[in-house]
């Protein structure tokens, strides 16, 4: 019965391949970074391999105590998505904090520059008058 179910997983593999292709296209167009998408690519590859090699996957699933392979697929996907989400959250928080610091630095530098510009311009105008 389990074999009957696993035979149908090629569709799942094709979906993984499609998402991987979209990811590659985004990478090629520099819309996303390779560093940031490596874990996602790894996750897709894992799910794709599970789909195209159902016998091995079934063996692993049985050893881990799963009677239905779909449950194993489901659990793996949820765990991988949770890890990916956590990783994205960490990256996002780092970027957010960095953006705050940069925004503050930019504002402080801009204010300093605006204050120093009139002071610099004044002697120049007096120089012109003197000449």
């Amino acid at each position: 019965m389990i074999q009957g179910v696993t035979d149908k997983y090629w569709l799942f593999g094709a979906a993984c391949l499609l998402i991987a292709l979209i990811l590659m296209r985004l990478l090629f167009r520099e819309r996303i970074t390779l560093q940031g998408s490596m874990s996602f690519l790894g996750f897709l590859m894992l799910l794709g391999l599970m789909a195209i090699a159902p016998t091995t996957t079934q063996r692993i699933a049985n050893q881990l105590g799963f009677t239905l392979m779909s449950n194993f697929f489901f659990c793996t996907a949820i765990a991988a998505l949770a890890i990916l989400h956590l990783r994205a959250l960490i990256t996002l928080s780092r970027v957010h904090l960095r953006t705050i610091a940069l925004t503050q630095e930019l504002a402080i530098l801009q204010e300093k520059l605006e204050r120093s510009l009139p002071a610099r311009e004044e002697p120049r105008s007096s120089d012109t008058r003197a000449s």
Partner: protein
Amino acid sequence: MRVLLIIPAYNEQQALGGLLSEIQALPRTDGVQLEALVVDDGSSDRTAEVAQAAGARVLRLCRNLGIGGAVQSGLRLAYRENFDAAVQIDGDGQHPPSELHSLLAPVREPNAPDLIVGTRYRSKENFRSTLLRRLGSWWLRVILRVLARVRVSDPTSGYRVYGPRALRLFDETYPYDFPEPESLAIAKAAGLKVSEVPVTMRERQGGTSSIAGFSTIYYMFKVTIAVALTYMRALRWKAKTDDSRSD
């Protein structure tokens, strides 16, 4: 004594002009040199122009950072330009500049506190805030007393004075989520002296508060977690700093 007045402002063009005029009209105090700095927190109105026209220094943040990010920008500038103290004052007109004298008085005393909070609950002349808000404030007082051992009667007050040690601390670390109560926990964990001074506060002169109605309850839930985490983080940060200094 050079004092920087930090005025965080987000779309406060209506209230800001009046506030800056009030600051300019303050009687000169011997030895105190006040400088007003408006931190325009990515406003979409003419906040920055109004501030500049009134003769204040203006920090223009290119995006909205929220009150924590805006205040820290001012504190960073005060620290880098070696100000002796900085006063945080709301741009919505809630904090009368006439109270600056009372707030700054303890700074000039020997053994001055590092962080002075202006409290509205110790003065009878103050306006009465909503029941939910007062309840929230009470809960925060309890949380801060139990978790961080800080005794402040108005933990959400944004009318404060930062001394040199506080400026140094908050240049390095400042909370962005719930800055007022969290910064008290940080200050306490870092070993700063926190005190309070009764001040009169007014109702907002314009705009609306972001905390109102039942969102106060959700705010309290979030802020409780935030204060606990911040206090633990600050304790760890202090231990690390002490270790690196002793090395």
